[in-house]
C-alpha cells in the first residue's frame, strides 16, 4: 500500500521541481516549491503508517509550520521586488551575473 503513496509523492515532487525550472512567475515558482514540500509531507505520513510510529506525522506538522513561515517571508520578498520592477518574472531579475 505504501508504495502507491510514495509514487504519488514522487510524482508531486517531480511536478513541483519541474514547475520551479520552467515557470517564470515568481509566485508560481514559489507555489511549486510548496508543492515539493507537501509531497514530502505525504511521504512522511505514509512512512509513519508503514513503520507504525508517529515521528513522520510529527514531522509533517513541523513542515507545515515552516512552510507557513516561508510563505510569509517569501511573499514579502516577492511583493517588494514586484513593486520595484512592476514584474514578478524571475527572469527579469538578472543584474547580478557572471
Amino acid at each position, binding site marked *: 500500500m505504501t508504495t502507491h503513496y510514495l509514487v504519488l509523492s514522487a510524482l508531486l515532487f517531480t511536478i513541483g*521541481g519541474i514547475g*520551479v*525550472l*520552467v515557470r*517564470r512567475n515568481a509566485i508560481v*515558482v514559489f507555489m511549486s516549491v510548496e508543492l515539493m514540500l507537501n509531497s514530502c509531507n505525504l511521504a512522511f505520513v505514509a512512512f509513519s503508517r508503514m513503520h507504525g510510529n508517529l515521528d513522520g506525522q510529527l514531522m509533517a506538522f513541523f513542515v507545515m509550520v515552516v512552510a507557513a513561515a516561508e510563505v510569509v517571508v517569501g511573499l514579502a520578498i516577492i511583493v517588494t521586488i514586484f513593486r520595484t520592477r512592476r514584474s514578478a518574472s*524571475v*527572469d527579469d*531579475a*538578472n*543584474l*547580478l*551575473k*557572471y
Partner: protein
Amino acid sequence: MSPAEITQYSGGGVIGVSWLMIALPLAGAAILLLGGRRTDRWGHLLGVAMSLASFVVAVLTFVALLGRDPAQRRLDIALFDFIPAGSLDVKMGLLIDPLSISFALLITGVGTLIHIYSIGYMSHDSDRRRFFSYLNLFVAAMLLLVLADNYVGLYIGWEGVGLASYLLIGFWQFKPSAAVAAKKAFIINRVGDVGLAIGIFTLFATFGTVGFKPIFENVGGASAGVMTAVGLLLLLGAVGKSAQLPLQAWLLDAMEGPTPVSALIHAATMVTAGVYLITRSSPIFEAAPTAQLVVTIVGAATLLFGAIIGCAKDDIKKGLAGSTMSQIGYMFLAAGLGGAVGYVAAIAHLLTHGFFKAGLFLGAGSVMHAMNDEVDMRRYGGLRKIMPITFGTFMLGYLAIIGIPPFAGWFTKDSIIEAAVQKHWILGAAAILGAALTAFYMSRMVFMTFFGEKRWEPDTHPHESPANMTGPMILLAIGSVFGGAFLVLGDRFMTFLAPVIGAPGPEYHGFQPLAPPGIITFVLVLAGIGIAWTMYGKRPVPVVAPRGSFATVAARRDLFGDALNEALFMRPGQWLTRVSVWFDNRGVDGLVNGLAATIGGTSGRLRRVQTGFARSYAMFVFVGAVLVTGALLLVGTL
C-alpha cells in the same frame, strides 16, 4: 679550574627581572616608532631614559652577581617556551654570567653616554626621534644577543643589531652614498649570517638542541670534524659582523652613518659581537684546534690590514674605522689563541677598546660638529686651542689606543701581544708590527687635526661642543685612562671571568710588562710616533693629498678590497643573474604565462555559465542532485 656549571635560577630579586634590560629599550623603540611625530618633543628624552634604566638594571644585576659565590655566578633564567615545534623546542631564557654581564654593562653604559651625546649632536636633525628609536632598538637587540641562553636567541639579537645597523648607516638616506653604504653593510653581513645560521642548524642536527648549556656539556660527544665545521661556520658569522677579512669591506663605508652610531655600533659594541660569539662558544672552539688556528690567522691578518688602511686615510672617521678593524683583529687573535689567558685578553681589550674608541669617535664627531661636518683631516689643523676639552679627551683616548703606559690600552694590548708571542713568533711579530702602525696612524691623526697651522675651509667657525656632548667624552676618557689598570692589575678580570672560561694553567705568571715583547713594542711605538711627527708634525700638511706611492694608493683604496669583491663576486654574480633571467624569461615564464593565459581564458568562458537567471541556477541544483543520486547509486552497486 674548569668553568662553573650553569644553574637554573628561579629566585626573584633583580636577577629574576633582568629581562627588563632588554624590555625597556625595546619598549622605548616601540613607543617612538609607533607614536610617530607625536613623540617628537620628548622622544630623545625617553630614549635616554630607557637606555639609562637598562644600565641601572645591568648594574644592579652585576652587584647581585658579585654577591654570589663565584661558582654560583652562571645563572639561567627561563622566560618562556618560544618555539615548541616537534623535536625543535626552543625555550627562551637569559644566561646571566660574568661574560654576559660584562657585555651588558659595556653596551648599556657606553650606550647611555652616546644617547646623551646624541641629544646635542642630532639637535638640528628633524628626525631626531627616529634616530633615538633606532638606537633603543639597537641596545635591545644587542642585549638580547649577549644575554640569550641559546643560539636562536643569539641569532635573533644578531639579526636585530644588523637591522639597527642598516637603519642607522642609512639614516640620512637622502644621501645616495649613505643608502648604498647601508645596503652594502646589509648584504655583506648576510653572507656571514648564513654561515652562522648553518652553524646553528648543524649544532641542532648534532645535539638536538640549541641551548648553550646542553650543547657545551655534550661537546665531548661530537666528532672533531663536526666541531671544526661548526667552528668555521660560526667564525664566518663572526667575521661578517666584526668586519674581519674577508668580509671587512662594509665597515669603512658604514661611516656614512651619524657619528654617534659609528661610535656605539661600529666601534664599541656591535662589531665586537664576533668576539663575543667566539668567546661564548669557547667549548666548541677548544674542541676544534683547526678552527682556532683559522681565527688567529684571520685576526692577525686583519689587524695589519686595518692598520695599513688607517695609515692612508684622510677622512678622520674612515681612519678610525680602519683602526677599529685592526683592534678587533687583536681581539680575534687573542680569542683564537684560546685558553683562559687568550679569552680574558680578548674581552679585556674589547672593554677598554669600547671606551677609548667610542671616546675617539665622539671626539671626531665633536670636531666635525665644529667644522661644518667636514671630515677631511687635511682641512683641519690647529684645533687644540679652540676645542680644549675635545683635544684633551681625544689625547687620552689616543694615548690609550697606542698603548702608552699606564693608559688602558697598554695593559690589554700588551696582554695580547705577550700571549701571541708565546703561541708563535709570526703571530707575535704581526701583533707588534700592528702596534707600531697604530702608533703611526693615530699620531698622524692627532697631528693633522689638533696641531699645525689652520687649513680650514673659509667660512668655518669652530667652537667647543656643548656640555651634553663633552660630558660623555670626559666620562669615556676616564675609562680610557683607568679601565685597563683596573681590569688587568691583580688579574681582577681574569678571576671574574673564571667561572665562564676557567682559570689559566700553572704556566701563567700574571701580567709581565717588562718582558722582552713589551719592551720591543714600546720602542716601536715610540718610533711610530716619531715618524708621524717628522711627516705630519714638523712639515706642513698639504691641503690636497699628494699622489703618493703605490702602497699609499692601495691603502687609500682599502687595499683593493672592493675591487676584489667586484672581480670575485659581483661580476660572476651579475653574469649568473643574466643567465638566470634569460632562462627564466624564455623557459619558466613562457610556461607559466601560457598556463596563466589558459586559466584566465577558461575563467572568462566558464563565468558565462553564471547567467544571472535564477531558474538556470535551479537547473544546476537539479542536475547536480540527479548526478549525485546517480553517482551514489552507481557506487552502491559496484
